[in-house]
């Protein structure tokens, strides 16, 4: 399996987006598909009269969670333990992976089914377990597709949104033996159903993610449309559920707020098909929860950026983002892509993810659709400043910004530069429209105005 990011990614967001942009028809299709989901989200949100009050309430519940996280984690642990669930704590990805491996080894399990968990993507659990000789089968259809294609998911809710049905047909033909050339979604889904049913029925361990964990009761909620988390967990002897420590909510009644928001924001459905509340293991079986920090506790101390820990992973910010829609999820070279990923990733590794806060137009649409009111575009802007100051900004950007500072702080230089720019674009376009200028990539520029606004204003102000 290719890793997210790092060397396998070959380059930063701009370079990876460049590769994605080579196929214009595909980019347009990707763009339109995600925009359609954004429109479904709008329709669902507008159908709820108190939507804005819901968002405000969710945001304030999450602010309360962050302000009392330590206590809530202890409360959750005690309640879960009282329910007969074993709670584990993992400081980082390595410890998380080791805990999961330890549980599987203890039960002599070398094959496991897994439902969607972006946390395990963040921790690169699959790769780790495979190196230890343990087979992991992703059971979410989209995740199974990218797993067979040896790619990471490109979207946290729609993992194979970048794939055409013909490509999925080919992957299934190669791995599941479906007839060559059959790309009918109904047929392919049925083939996957049969293929995965066999896995569900024969695996003794199941790993799931967690959408919400209730401090008050020790129960946790897993939301799926396919039913794959439930198929895995209820047929297995051991259920391991992994969560980032920020997934805690104080009381069960708060689920009412979040379940109303989550799926409407994600896909425009009123709720997922299944919202399963796991509290106690089946008699004689085991249930484990792994609480994972992996940088979150440190992030909590960053006043300007801690709000990103409110995220409920609906991906509304992905679907609305003009940059995500046209650059694809893989261009972000991190487990959680899109605008939210761009403000989460630099917390983990500033060097590696310094490019991501720049992969945005700062249009603010992400913040407008966010169901928990994270100030995403403000944080993108703030991260840029932090990264430039700490010397992590891309070199070309630093040089360009220095020049801009000089131009913008000298009115006469500014006016001359403007004039020169218009003259060159009009009379010698090749000097600006060339490979050196990224603004011309996959873009048609508007006609050049004859005069600047300043000149026009002077002429017309009387």
């Amino acid at each position, binding site marked *: 399996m290719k890793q997210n990011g790092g060397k396998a990614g070959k380059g930063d967001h701009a370079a990876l987006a460049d590769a994605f942009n080579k196929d214009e028809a595909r980019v347009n299709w990707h763009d339109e*598909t995600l925009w359609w*989901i954004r429109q479904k989200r709008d329709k*669902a949100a507008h159908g*709820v*009269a*108190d939507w804005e*009050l819901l968002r405000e309430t969710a945001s*304030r519940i999450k602010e*309360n969670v*962050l*302000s009392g996280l*330590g206590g809530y*984690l202890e409360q959750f642990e005690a309640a879960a333990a009282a*329910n007969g669930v074993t709670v584990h*704590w993992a*400081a980082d990805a390595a410890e998380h992976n080791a805990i999961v491996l330890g549980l599987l080894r203890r039960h002599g399990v070398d094959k496991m089914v897994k439902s969607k968990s972006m946390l395990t993507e963040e921790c690169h659990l699959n790769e780790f377990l495979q190196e230890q000789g343990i087979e992991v089968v992703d*059971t979410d*259809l*989209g995740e199974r597709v990218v797993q067979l294609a040896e790619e990471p998911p490109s979207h946290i809710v*729609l993992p*194979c*949104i970048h794939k055409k*049905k013909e490509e999925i047909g080919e992957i299934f033909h190669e791995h599941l033996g479906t007839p060559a050339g059959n790309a009918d*979604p*109904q047929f392919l*889904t*049925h083939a996957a*159903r049969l293929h*995965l*049913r066999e896995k*569900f029925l024969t695996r003794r361990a199941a790993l799931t993610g967690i959408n919400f964990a209730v401090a008050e009761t020790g129960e946790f909620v897993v939301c799926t*449309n396919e*039913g*794959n988390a*439930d*198929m895995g967990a209820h*047929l297995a002897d051991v259920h391991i559920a992994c969560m980032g420590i920020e997934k805690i909510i104080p009381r*069960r*009644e708060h689920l*009412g*707020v979040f379940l*109303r928001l989550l799926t*409407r924001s994600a896909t425009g*459905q*009123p*709720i*997922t*098909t*299944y*919202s*399963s*509340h796991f*509290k*106690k293991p*089946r008699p004689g079986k085991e249930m484990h929860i792994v609480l994972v*920090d992996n940088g979150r*506790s440190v992030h*909590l*101390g960053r006043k300007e950026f*801690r709000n990103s820990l409110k995220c409920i992973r609906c991906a509304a910010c992905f679907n609305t983002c003009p940059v995500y829609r046209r650059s694809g999820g893989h261009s972000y070279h991190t487990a959680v892509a899109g605008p939210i990923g761009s403000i989460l990733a630099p917390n983990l590794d500033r060097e590696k993810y310094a490019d991501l806060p720049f992969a945005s137009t700062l249009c603010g649409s992400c913040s407008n659709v966010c169901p928990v009111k994270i100030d995403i575009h403000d944080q993108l802007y703030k991260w840029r400043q932090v990264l430039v100051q700490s010397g992590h900004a891309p070199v070309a950007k630093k040089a360009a910004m220095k020049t801009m500072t000089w131009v913008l702080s000298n009115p006469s230089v500014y006016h001359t530069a403007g004039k020169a720019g218009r003259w060159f674009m009009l009379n010698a376009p090749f000097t600006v429209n060339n490979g050196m200028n990224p603004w011309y990539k996959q873009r048609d520029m508007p006609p050049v105005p004859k005069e600047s606004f300043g000149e026009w204003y002077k002429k017309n102000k009387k």
Partner: protein
Amino acid sequence: MSSRENILKTVKGNQPEWRELPELKALGAAAGGVDLSGEALADGFVKVLEAIGGAAYVVSGYDRVGTILRELFPRVGRVVSGCPELGFGEAAGGYADPHELEDVGLAVLSAHFGVAENGACWITEDRMIERALPFIAQNLALVIRKKDVVANMHAAYEKIEAMGLGYGFATFIAGPSKTADIEQSLVLGAHGPKSMTVFLVDEEMSDAGFY
């Protein structure tokens, strides 16, 4: 120090000043586009459930449930029922292993209540026979009383609280299992049931029109 102590120490050192929880009372005055007045709740529930790929029938009692199920699923194979009033289906319970349920064609279970704004039904494990059953069956039918439809999720959790049911596992089910992972084409029957039928029993309803 263990990871637990380390994490808690860092979290407590870094968490911001305490923020009070918001009130939830004002929420849910309007359900998701659904009329909240008495009779309209069940109608709203049916409308939403049908929109998300489910089917709904308002019936006078279990006689009608049985008749409709026989018509809908004439050759469904193994039927497991958690509703003794139904009069057919396997006498449920006592399975040594949930894997024994892998070939169930239809599961008929009694759920607690429905939610008008999203077409979901709440069911706790004591009514599932086995936790796996509502998921592993090829088709799922749930029975609720027509008067047990609440407006929205806030009302749902209030009801769950008020019922005081202890459960080890419980779930909201809204429609058949589905996926749109392949080019956003909606396909019903991903891993779980390919169909979901909800019966709303109205004891005051007359059967006269049906026969």
